[in-house]
């Protein structure tokens, strides 16, 4: 195929040469060229190998519908499957063809074409079944993946995308003739309007074809310039160019992706795409139409192209891909290509039309006759032939005689379809038009308006009245635009989906889906095998399942199926169109919510100290908490945890508990409210005292726990678990607003306002005395579960005597800004008493030794306080609290509920694991009744062996008996069921 350059136009600058590399060879194109137009300029038409048969493929279209010309952009993080027909070139761009080895010209995989008679629909399903399941995973799948497929996944990707939200009255999708006219109506109106076009230049058909000769008695290009200027000047209209609407959701919610680097290389670290999330009152779809192809033998050869695409290359890129293409059509849409070719001083090698002479438009007839173009009416192309490019075609003329025509390019037109993709995404219904042989939008589901060819209006006669009628719900200007056409015709089409090949052969292929290598034979076979429903047929044959979603071919498939089944196309239906309209990169969807911004990280005010002191962090919700502290690089986690926990038992430890949720509750009725929220009764509690409290769901199950400090009947501070803080506050708000709006109570989170240090261990009192010399820490003055407010060096602090380790302990609450200084101070003062920091793992071990539960670890939303042995925490005299009534439901008073117990291995040297099932039999023989499972398990150097907490059926009454823990190797470990307290059962150390 020899291309020639035509005249320069506003889109392409012949004086600005751009060099790029395709498969390692340097070529030149011009500024404004797409990869496809630049390759065509260099007479390259073989650009890739097909998905299954590795057949040579060329450039088939000139836009987003391209099924074949997919390339890998090496210079952009190796972005695969890029449509060469859209992507603009830039200086230094590196492009590679896909799915070929060792080279595009000599592709080893093309051997598949020889075996193609066996690669029919369902081949994989039928063939790769046995002899064993493992064969698929280990042999077949890797092999098939190697042989099939398109581009290679990029190795690393650092694309950045921003998200922008719009809230407008009207969104116009498509800036072609109808889109511009619609926008023109809205100029200086009271509506906020967004006009979105996929291309860099607005104009659509005005730029892409020679169909229109005059608009309002001016040159279309001049009219376009003026109109765009008027729209840009209008303050209520915003134009988004290079922006593709991919998704049309419920409630007029649109997603569009904007390419920020059209025609230049994305700069690393700069935003390269913007995802627009648009909410709109009305959507006006002006996204035009797509030309479809026709099926005949070898309709995939390089050199075959859609006729409107050929014309687009001429008008848009100043390039005729061939000097004398053959045109094959069954409709009037290709008329303007004939006109364009002759206007450019070229002429078609032949014009072949399946329609009869009477049906062909008279002015096309005249044009063809005047220029001596060979004309074949009532004729069909039986096949195209050539080696890696089209060399000749076989035409069956009206008399049935076969004519061979040598050619280097064939332009096809099988008719046009409204681009109904977005309309159907919006859940609007389609209807088959028997005259125009295509699906057209009929019933919208949302406030959706379709204009122009997107609505199925392929003629321009009713342009003004149609727009005025459809926009009458808006208070906008009426249009009166005069249009004159070059090829003054009404759209006319004759039914033709497929031409059968001249010779029957197993190797003769008429493609129905170029990207997925689906042939018309596959469709027949699928129907024969019973896959005659369109959704089944699609999945069985993979028809229209490629990245192009069958944009130029899916309607043809419906036509063929309806003929085969002898059903109307409306009865056959279409498969459901799903978003996105065209592939959308994950990085665009992720936007800035990736890497460190994926989920916010919350850090305590002491975080910097932890970093300097060997902390290994654990994620608790969004918080970073020190898991344990490594004193040197060789210390293992086990060693560190044992050292830390032992030090708490023998000397003293300090834990950064700042992440604990803290909620302040205030108000006249705060006491009544707290009594309703928590199981405990706070009425008789003294001011200045604290209480361990449980919060239940209405189903009676434990939802959270914490310590409640009562400052007065009108003022409480509650702590929550680290992960439950937001839920607990949310629950309090919900009940305060919805169930008890009569209570005067307010609550707020103070989690981040205060840092918390938990100091515990036998030496704690000495350390506290030294750190806060003005405070009396004696048992009499500062008993267990009380708190005091103090001022320390001008900083207001609250000290609570409580413990989660079982040792003498204090919690210090300090305003976050002053926390690090006091933490440092305590660290240096505490050294002589053996004070050392400990992390969450040691904390878990220490609390488990005491049998203190962790909500969410030892409970799972199916455990009541009674199951935990915490009945003493239920304020039985209270009339009501969350979940109270549920504690006497038939299910919650069952005796065989899972209850919390302690577990120790009968042989102290045995190991236990979290998650192990507790069973009664030594031998595992299925089915085996499962009593429950281990919820927490640790090795304790204080005890000298493993120990665990578990929830098991009827557990409280099983204390003192023996059972077994199943292991992952199907053996069992003998265990003793004990009370869930392993250390200092009578709390002597706690209150010492």
């Amino acid at each position, binding site marked *: 195929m020899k291309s020639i350059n035509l005249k320069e136009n506003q889109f392409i600058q012949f004086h600005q040469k751009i060099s790029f590399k395709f498969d390692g060879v340097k070529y030149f194109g011009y500024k404004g060229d797409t990869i496809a137009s630049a390759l065509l300029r260099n007479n390259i038409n073989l650009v890739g190998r097909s998905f299954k048969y590795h057949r040579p493929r060329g450039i088939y279209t000139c836009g987003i519908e391209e099924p074949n010309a997919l390339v890998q952009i090496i210079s952009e993080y190796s972005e695969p499957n890029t449509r060469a027909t859209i992507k603009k070139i830039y200086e230094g761009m590196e492009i590679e063809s896909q799915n070929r080895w060792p080279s595009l010209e000599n592709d080893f995989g093309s051997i598949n074409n020889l075996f193609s008679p066996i690669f029919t629909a369902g081949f994989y399903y039928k063939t790769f079944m046995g002899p064993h399941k493992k064969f698929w995973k280990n042999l077949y799948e890797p092999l098939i993946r190697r042989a099939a497929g398109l581009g290679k996944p990029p190795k690393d990707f650092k694309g950045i995308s921003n998200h922008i939200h719009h809230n407008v009255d009207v969104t116009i999708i498509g800036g072609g003739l109808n889109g511009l006219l619609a926008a023109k109506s809205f100029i200086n109106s009271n509506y906020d309007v967004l006009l979105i076009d996929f291309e860099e230049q607005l104009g659509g058909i005005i730029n892409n074809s020679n169909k229109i000769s005059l608009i309002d008695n001016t040159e279309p290009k001049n009219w376009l310039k003026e109109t765009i200027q008027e729209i840009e000047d209008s303050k209520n209209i915003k134009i988004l160019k290079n922006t593709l609407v991919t998704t049309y959701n419920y*409630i007029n919610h649109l997603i569009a992706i904007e390419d920020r680097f059209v025609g230049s290389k994305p700069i690393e670290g700069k935003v390269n795409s913007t995802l627009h999330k648009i909410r709109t009152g009305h959507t006006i779809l002006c996204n035009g139409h797509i030309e479809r192809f026709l099926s005949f033998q070898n309709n995939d050869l390089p050199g075959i192209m859609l006729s409107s695409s050929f014309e687009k290359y001429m008008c848009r890129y100043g390039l005729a891909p061939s000097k004398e293409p053959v045109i094959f059509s069954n409709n009037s849409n290709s008329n303007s290509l004939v006109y364009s070719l002759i206007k450019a001083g070229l002429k078609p090698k032949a014009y072949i039309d399946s329609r009869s002479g009477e049906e062909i438009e008279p002015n096309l007839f005249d044009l063809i006759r005047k220029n001596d173009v060979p004309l074949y009416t009532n004729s069909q192309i039986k096949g195209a032939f050539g080696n890696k490019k089209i060399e000749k075609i076989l035409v069956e003329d009206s008399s049935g005689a076969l004519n061979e025509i040598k050619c280097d390019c064939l332009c096809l037109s099988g008719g046009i379809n409204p681009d109904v993709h977005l309309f159907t995404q919006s859940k*609007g*219904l*389609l209807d088959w038009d028997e005259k125009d042989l295509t699906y057209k939008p009929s019933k919208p589901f949302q406030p959706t308006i379709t204009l122009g060819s997107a609505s199925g209006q392929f003629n321009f006669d009713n342009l003004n009245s149609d727009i005025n009628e459809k926009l009458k719900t808006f208070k906008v200007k009426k249009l009166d635009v005069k249009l004159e056409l070059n090829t003054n015709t009404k759209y006319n089409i004759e039914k033709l989906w497929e031409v059968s090949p001249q010779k029957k052969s197993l190797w003769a292929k008429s493609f129905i889906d170029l990207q997925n290598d689906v042939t018309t034979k596959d469709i027949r076979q699928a129907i024969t095998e019973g896959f005659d429903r369109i959704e089944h047929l699609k999945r069985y044959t993979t028809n229209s399942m490629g990245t192009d979603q069958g944009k130029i071919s899916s309607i043809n498939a419906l036509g063929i199926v309806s003929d085969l089944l002898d059903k109307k196309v409306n009865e056959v239906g279409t498969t459901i169109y799903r978003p996105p309209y065209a592939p959308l990169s994950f990085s665009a969807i992720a936007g800035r919510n990736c890497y460190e911004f994926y989920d916010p990280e919350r850090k305590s005010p002491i975080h910097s100290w932890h970093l300097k002191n060997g902390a290994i962090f654990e994620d608790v919700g969004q918080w970073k908490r020190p898991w344990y502290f490594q004193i040197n690089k060789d210390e293992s986690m086990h060693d560190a945890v044992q050292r830390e926990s032992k030090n708490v038992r023998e000397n003293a430890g300090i834990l950064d508990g700042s992440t604990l949720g803290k909620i302040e509750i205030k108000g006249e009725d705060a006491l009544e409210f707290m009594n309703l929220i928590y199981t405990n009764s706070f009425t008789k509690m003294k001011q200045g005292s604290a209480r361990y409290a449980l919060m239940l769901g209405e189903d009676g199950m434990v939802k959270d726990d914490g310590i409640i400090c009562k400052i007065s009947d009108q003022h409480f501070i509650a702590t929550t678990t680290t992960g439950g803080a937001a839920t607990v506050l949310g629950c309090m*708000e919900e009940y305060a607003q*919805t169930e008890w709006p009569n209570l005067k109570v307010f609550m707020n989170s103070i989690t981040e306002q205060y840092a918390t240090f938990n100091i515990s261990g036998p030496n704690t009192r000495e350390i506290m005395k030294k750190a806060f010399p003005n405070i009396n820490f004696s048992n009499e003055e500062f008993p267990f579960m009380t708190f005091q407010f103090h001022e320390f060096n001008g900083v207001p602090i609250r000290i609570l005597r409580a413990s989660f380790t079982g040792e003498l302990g204090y919690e210090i609450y300090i305003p976050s800004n002053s926390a690090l200084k006091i933490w440092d101070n305590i660290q240096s003062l505490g050294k002589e008493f053996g004070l050392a920091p400990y992390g969450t793992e040691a904390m878990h071990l220490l609390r488990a030794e005491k049998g203190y539960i962790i909500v969410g670890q030892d409970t799972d939303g199916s455990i009541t306080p009674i199951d935990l042995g915490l009945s003493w925490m239920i304020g039985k005299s209270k*009339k*009501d*609290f969350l979940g109270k009534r*549920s504690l006497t439901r038939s299910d919650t008073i069952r005796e065989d509920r899972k209850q919390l117990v302690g577990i120790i291995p009968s042989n102290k040297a045995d190991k236990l694991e979290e998650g192990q099932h507790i069973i009664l039999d030594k031998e595992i023989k299925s089915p085996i009744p499962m009593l429950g499972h281990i919820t927490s398990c640790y090795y304790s150097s204080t005890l000298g062996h493993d120990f665990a907490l578990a929830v098991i059926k009827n557990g409280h009454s099983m204390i003192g008996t023996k059972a077994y823990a199943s292991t992952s190797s199907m053996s069992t470990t003998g265990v003793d069921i004990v009370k869930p307290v392993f250390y200092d059962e009578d709390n002597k150390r706690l209150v010492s």
Partner: protein
Amino acid sequence: MLIINCPYCGPRDQSEFSNGGEAHVKRPDGSKEIGDREWGEYVFIRANPKGLFYERWVHTHGCRKWFNCVRDTSTDEILVTYKLDEKKPNLNNFKSVVKTPSGEPEVGSGNFTVEK
């Protein structure tokens, strides 16, 4: 995705809100005797209609206020929002798109693209 009209803040994006299930479910008075059935229905049983539904929402990432609304569950359209202490609107005031016997809306069920 929806725009929800918070009765306190005005129209805001759905991502700021959390759904709170069926509205106008009264919590039984705990100070009185409550039967197993009555309590069980309050805790576990909620209506789940296709069509118009009274629903609770909370402006979680906003004013933190709870409010009620009428939502058409077949289209996701929120027809009205109102404060907790306002009277619940009569459902007959709203048109539901659910008309077919199976409860599918005539258009937009997503199960087909061509009118049957």
